[in-house]
Each structure stands twice: as structure tokens, then as C-alpha cells.
């Protein structure tokens, strides 16, 4: 290509105390190009796009836009120069309406009535149905993302940055998003696409730059490179795929019968008439878009939430009215999604956190007195077995990175030899090699006869480890089906199809 690149980055470097987030990163994007930015957690992707968007100032290096120097001091300047960004988190205001949210992201927002009209026009042009008057707090994840995208599109950006846009969407919603992105790219808008979902990148992106530990480690053309090769470039070593031996499921361990329960939180989702069985040595994968009853289901299984007698049976015994501690003693262990504050106490040491769930089954207390040396040994065993990177068990849970704490939290339950293990988002925010280790641990556990319920939003993960798959949608659980041979289409329908897309088919 001979045309001037839209954006050219040369030698960008940004260091934070103790860590170099970006080290001499160079990147070129042509107009209309869909460029993928790939890398593990902590590889420096977010820092790089924050520099382009003016949220962070580089320590060294230059940026050029259309051949002219480009150094936005703040997001306002970046937006004025034609850079739009769709954030992964934190950029919508729940209590405000769609139109108000969009006005906040614009330089010279027109009057609300004019803006509402513009929003309708853009949403029709790009097939993103959205009503400007609705309050954002009531929207589904896919609809929220549309708000962000339309906010960017109203500024007619030349470069659209998307940070992990598909992590919260159903497959159908992903398809709609991709259609929109292809249309934009055909119109000449360049897209910088951050993701670690490799298959998506292969189908969508023209070029890819791979970051590892802040450095560019490779470029490739995604459509011509296998997902495995890209993953290995990201990780820097050969990737181990979890393996399992064939096996036969045993007796029923967990039986849910007509489990219905109101959600304990005001914005939660009630569980509606869930009936399912899980057997010894079996992994039941539960998919679905976040907020469809995942947290409530975990709470009903762990004992945080009591339910109608008879609705939860464990090895034939009715445990519906038992609290978490008696259930733990019986062998029902769980690891909730929220690591800091739910699974672990942020300001307590790892030893203390190990004690909190391990006391009963590991015999870490006697007559109300704590056995500190045993607790420390237990914590050390978790750290060693699960390769948790920390100076020692005396460190606070908060000081661990998300992935390391996740390994600790999962490891803590796995090492207690559960009869039934319930995990929610076991590898959320964990890098590929650690995620593979966690999945392997779950599979090994199942191999030894534990019944496992894995709730996750990562469909690839569920397909990899589940024996049977079911989806939560609006608090209802679809009938489970054998995971092998399920197509993406079928899974999408089990998850309830595309949310709020009825308008599009008119």
C-alpha cells in the first residue's frame, strides 16, 4: 500500500513504577483497516490504546496521524482528531438515559431532541436498534455496547478503538457487531480491535500485532495464521491443551428440583424452576450472558441463599435449608466470581483467606482455637500446587494480580477434595497458560470423582471442559445437552438469541 497510514506509532514507551508497560512499541494502521491488538493480561494493550486516546502520556516515542504529529493531551483532543473508543468497562452512567450518556461523550452536544433524532438515524443506518430515552441501567450488555458504539459513530471517527468488545455478548450479538464493524471498515473507518478471542480475530481482522510484556513480539495476517500459532506467540511458549481420559459418570451427586428463588439483590435475576442433575465425575457447564441468574445460582448451591425445602439435594439429602458451613463440611465447595470481596477478603493474608473456607475440612481449628501452623502449611500447599506468584502466604490477597488470586481461590477449593465443586467464571481475567492450568485442575478433579458445575461466559472454555452444557437465560436453565457436537448456533439459541434485536427483523 502506498497511501499514507492513518495512524503510525513509533517507539512508544511508557513505564510505571516497577513495570515497563510499553517498551518501544511501533504500529501502523491504514484507513479502513481492521487491526487486531493481541496479548495476555498485562501485555500492555490497554496502556497503548490509552496513549492513543490521550488518557496516558507516553514517556518516549512519537505518534503520527495522517502524516502529522499527533500527541493528544487529553481524550477531548483525541476525539477531535477523529479517535473514538469503546471501553471494556467504566464508561456508561447507569442512572442516565441513553441520550444523556451519548451527550456526555460528545464535544458540542446538540439539543436533546436533535440528538435523539441523530441517535435514531445512526442506529438505523448501522443496524443497531436503540431507543434514546431508555435508562442505561435497564439495558442488556449488548445494548449498552451499542450505546458506546453509537456515541463514537456520532463523531464520525476515523479510528475506532474497541477494547474486548465481545466478552459480554451472545454469539448472535457478536454477529451483529461484526456486520456493523465490516460496514464501517468498508466506509474507510479504521478499527483497532483488542481481544484475546482468536477465532473472532481470524474472521474479522486484516492484520494483527502481538504484544508480550510490553514489547511487540510479532505481526501476522490473522486469516492466514492458526489460532494456536497466535496463542503461542502471545504466551511465548507452547500451549498445553487440557486433556482428559474417557470415563463413565457415577451416581447422582447434586439434584436440583424446581429450584425457584428471588434474587437477594435489587438488580438481580430470580431463579425460575431450575431442574438438573449432576453425577460423580461429571462436569456440567453453564453458559449465558452475565446477569441471567449466575450469581444467584451459585448462592443457592453454596448455601448463601436458602431455598424451598426439597429443591436442592446433595447425595440424596435435602440441603436446601443448610448454610454454607454445614454444606462445606459435607463437601459442597464453591468459588464465586468476584475474587476481591466475595471469594477472598482483600486485606487479609493468604493464610487467613485459606483458613476462612478451609477450616472445617482441613481441620485448621480445634474447639474455636486456630491452628496457625496448619493454616500456613495449607496456604503454602495451594501456592505451590497452583503456581501462585507471590512472595509468601503472609501477603494480603489484595496484593496479588487478578490471575494469581484466581489461581489461589480455585486452588483453595480444589485441594479440599470436594464432593461437589461449583465455580463461577473460573478463568475470568486469567492469562492463557494459567487458565489452561486451572481447567486442567478442574478436569483432574472430575477424574477423581468430583461432580463439577462450571458457570462461565467463555463458551470456548465450557466446550473444552464440559461433559454437558446448559444455558441460563432470565433465570431459567435450558435442558442440558452433551457438549460434544454442539454448534455455536445452537448454543446461541439456548442462551436466548440476540437480546433486544426484535426491532431489527421488522
Amino acid at each position, binding site marked *: 500500500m502506498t497511501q499514507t497510514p492513518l495512524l503510525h506509532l513509533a517507539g512508544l514507551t511508557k513505564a510505571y513504577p516497577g513495570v515497563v508497560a510499553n517498551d518501544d512499541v511501533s504500529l501502523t494502521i491504514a484507513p479502513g483497516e481492521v487491526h487486531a491488538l493481541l496479548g495476555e493480561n498485562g501485555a500492555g494493550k490497554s496502556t497503548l490504546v*490509552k496513549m492513543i486516546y*490521550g*488518557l*496516558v502520556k507516553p514517556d518516549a516515542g512519537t505518534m503520527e496521524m495522517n502524516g502529522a504529529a499527533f500527541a493528544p493531551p*487529553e*481524550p*477531548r483532543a483525541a*476525539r477531535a482528531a477523529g479517535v473514538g473508543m469503546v*471501553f471494556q*468497562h*467504566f*464508561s*456508561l*452512567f*447507569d*442512572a*442516565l438515559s441513553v441520550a*444523556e450518556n451519548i*451527550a*456526555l*461523550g460528545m464535544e458540542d*452536544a446538540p439539543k436533546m431532541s436533535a440528538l435523539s433524532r441523530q441517535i435514531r438515524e445512526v442506529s438505523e443506518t448501522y443496524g443497531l436498534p436503540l431507543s434514546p430515552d431508555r435508562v442505561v441501567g435497564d439495558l442488556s450488555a449488548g445494548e449498552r455496547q451499542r450505546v458506546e458504539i453509537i456515541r463514537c459513530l456520532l463523531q464520525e471517527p476515523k479510528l475506532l478503538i474497541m477494547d474486548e468488545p465481545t466478552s459480554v455478548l451472545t454469539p448472535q450479538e457478536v454477529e451483529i457487531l461484526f456486520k456493523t464493524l465490516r460496514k464501517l471498515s468498508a466506509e474507510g473507518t479504521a478499527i483497532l480491535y483488542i481481544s484475546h478471542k482468536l477465532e473472532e480475530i481470524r474472521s474479522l481482522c486484516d492484520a494483527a500485532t502481538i504484544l508480550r510484556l510490553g514489547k511487540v513480539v510479532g505481526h501476522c495476517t490473522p486469516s492466514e495464521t492458526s489460532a494456536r500459532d497466535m496463542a503461542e506467540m502471545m504466551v511465548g511458549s507452547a500451549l498445553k491443551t487440557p486433556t482428559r481420559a474417557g470415563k463413565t459418570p457415577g451416581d447422582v451427586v447434586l439434584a436440583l428440583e424446581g429450584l425457584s428463588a428471588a434474587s437477594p439483590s*435489587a438488580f438481580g435475576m430470580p431463579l425460575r424452576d431450575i431442574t438438573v442433575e449432576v453425577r460423580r465425575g461429571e462436569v456440567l457447564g453453564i453458559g449465558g450472558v452475565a446477569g441471567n441468574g449466575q450469581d444467584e445460582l451459585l448462592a443457592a448451591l453454596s448455601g448463601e441463599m436458602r431455598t424451598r425445602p426439597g429443591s436442592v439435594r446433595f447425595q440424596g439429602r435435602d440441603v436446601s435449608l443448610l448454610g454454607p458451613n454445614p454444606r462445606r463440611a459435607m463437601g459442597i465447595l464453591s468459588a464465586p466470581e468476584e475474587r476481591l470481596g466475595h471469594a477472598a477478603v482483600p486485606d487479609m493474608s493468604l493464610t487467613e483467606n485459606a483458613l476462612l473456607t478451609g477450616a472445617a475440612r482441613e481441620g485448621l481449628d480445634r474447639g474455636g482455637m486456630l491452628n496457625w501452623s496448619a493454616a500456613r502449611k495449607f496456604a503454602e500447599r495451594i501456592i505451590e500446587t497452583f503456581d501462585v506468584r507471590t512472595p509468601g502466604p503472609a501477603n494480603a490477597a489484595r496484593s496479588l494480580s487478578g490471575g494469581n488470586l484466581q489461581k489461589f481461590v480455585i486452588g483453595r477449593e480444589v485441594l479440599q477434595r470436594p464432593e461437589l465443586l461449583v465455580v463461577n467464571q473460573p478463568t475470568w481475567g486469567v492469562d492463557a497458560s494459567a487458565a489452561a492450568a486451572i481447567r486442567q485442575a478442574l478436569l483432574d478433579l472430575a477424574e477423581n470423582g468430583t461432580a463439577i458445575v462450571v458457570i462461565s461466559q467463555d463458551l470456548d472454555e465450557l466446550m473444552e471442559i464440559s461433559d454437558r452444557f446448559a444455558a441460563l437465560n432470565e433465570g431459567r436453565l435450558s435442558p442440558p445437552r452433551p457438549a460434544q457436537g454442539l454448534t455455536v448456533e445452537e448454543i446461541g439459541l439456548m442462551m436466548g438469541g440476540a437480546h433486544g434485536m426484535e426491532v431489527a427483523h421488522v
Partner: protein
Amino acid sequence: MDLSAINPVLFIAGFLVAATPLIFAAIGELVVEKSGTLNLGVEGMMITGAICGFAIAVETGSPLLGFVAAAVGGALLSLLFAFLTQITLANQVASGLALTLFGLGLSSLLGQSYVGIKPPRLGDINFGPLADIPVIGPILFTHDIILYLGFLLVAAVWAVLKFTRAGLVLRAVGESHDAAHALGYKVVRIRTLAIMFGGACAGVGGAYISLIRVPQWTEGMTAGVGWIALALVVFASWKPWRLLLGAYLFGGITQLQLNLQGAGVAIPVEYLAMSPYVITIVVLVILSRDKSAAPASLGRTFHAST
């Protein structure tokens, strides 16, 4: 007892006066809380405003200059809170309580030589023939300018929050400071300005007590109005008009119990004295069932991580 001694016209005119300090303090705090900051120092800023206003009015002979000084005094004290919570990221509850204690002490110190002095009086606005309308005239058109300003301030805050971009940005910062920061809004600056606005309003409210309602200087004379203002903001669900209603309710019952005391009702004075607090809170609790109205970031410390 003799209830006929209560003149309804004077009673209503009186409760408008009684409600005004509360209106100022509460509408200021409403703006502060809409920006996502909880300033429990309202009482301290009020009493500081009361003595600043009183002293300057006495020294210059101009009550209006006194009100300006009260606003400046309240805003300066609130800057201390802004510094603690926005710059040093101190806990907002502890900082607010400290501000109240500091304000009470500071005002006693400043006010030592002003005890027992009468301040210059702020005249009523002359509405001409309007004031001669029976009943309505004496109720609505015989007040000083500050009282009307209080009413206008509520209307202005409502309109700014609802219709202007500045109001939208303020609400956005209070809803999610992380999102506002990501969009490039200056969270700390916006919050500091809101805190100063709240301080200035509380100061004017305090000066209204020392210059018009009472009018004299005694230590601790705000007597908990700042705390009522804080409660009022919450129970009014952060809505300006409901806040005005609550302030009038409180003012009305305060005035009523004073009149009842004067009329010699056979209820112990202590019960009458507590009645405005109890009734206002009960009514507003009933009104405030839509609990979702609280700014989502209220009281959370913002630290820009980038």
C-alpha cells in the same frame, strides 16, 4: 390555652423565614452529593458562615456584605474538606465530622467579642401595592431579599441539573467517577467546585439565622439545622422541589410549636421542641420510597489510576 392567639398570616410568613436557612444549607449539600461527595460538615460551615456574616455586617454596617462574607467563609472552610477528601483522599465521613467540630470551635473563637451585640437589620423588599393585598400580601411580599434568593436558588439548581450540560456533567461525575474520568472530565475539579458551592450556601444559611431569624450571635446557634439539612437531602431523594417541600414542612412545624408554646398548650415543651425533627423525618421517610435515586458514586473516594 388559646389557639386563637395564633395569627395564621403571621404564622405562614414566619415559617417561610424559619425554613430559609435550611433551604440554603440543603440545596448546597444536594449539589455536593450529586457530584458524588458526602460532606457531613454542613453544620460546621453554617456556624462559620453565621459568625463571618455577623461580624462583617456589624463591622461594615451592611447586612448584604455580611451575607457575602458568610458565603466566602463557608466556601473557604469547605476548601479544607475538598483538600482532605479530593487531594489527600481522606475518608469523607471522618473529614466531614472533623469539619463540623472545627467549625463549631472556630466560630466560638471568632465570635467572642460579638456576644450581645445587635446586628444591622436587612430591610424587606418594597413591593409597593402588592404588599397591601389582604392575606397574600403580608405572607409573600414582606420579606428580605435573601429569602427570595433561597427560593430562586432551588429553582436554579433544579433547572441547571435537569437542562444544562454543566448539570449533566455534574450528575455524571456523581454517578460514576471512573466513567467520567475515562471520558476526560476533570472529576476532582468538578467535585471541588461543587463542595465550594455547598460551603457558600451553608454559610449564607448560617448567616440567615444570625442576621435575620434570631438576630444575634450565640455559640452553637445553628442548633442542628445542618444535620437536618443533611437528612433532608437524603429523604428528598436528591430532588430539589421535594427538598423545598421538606424544608417548608420543617419550618412550618418549628413555627407551629413555637406558637403552641406561646399559646400555652398542655404538652411538655420538650416534646414540642422535638416535634419538627420527628415529623419532618417521618414524612420524608414515607415520601422517599424510590431509593434508587442516590448518586451511585456517593461517598466513594476517586483515585485516577492512570
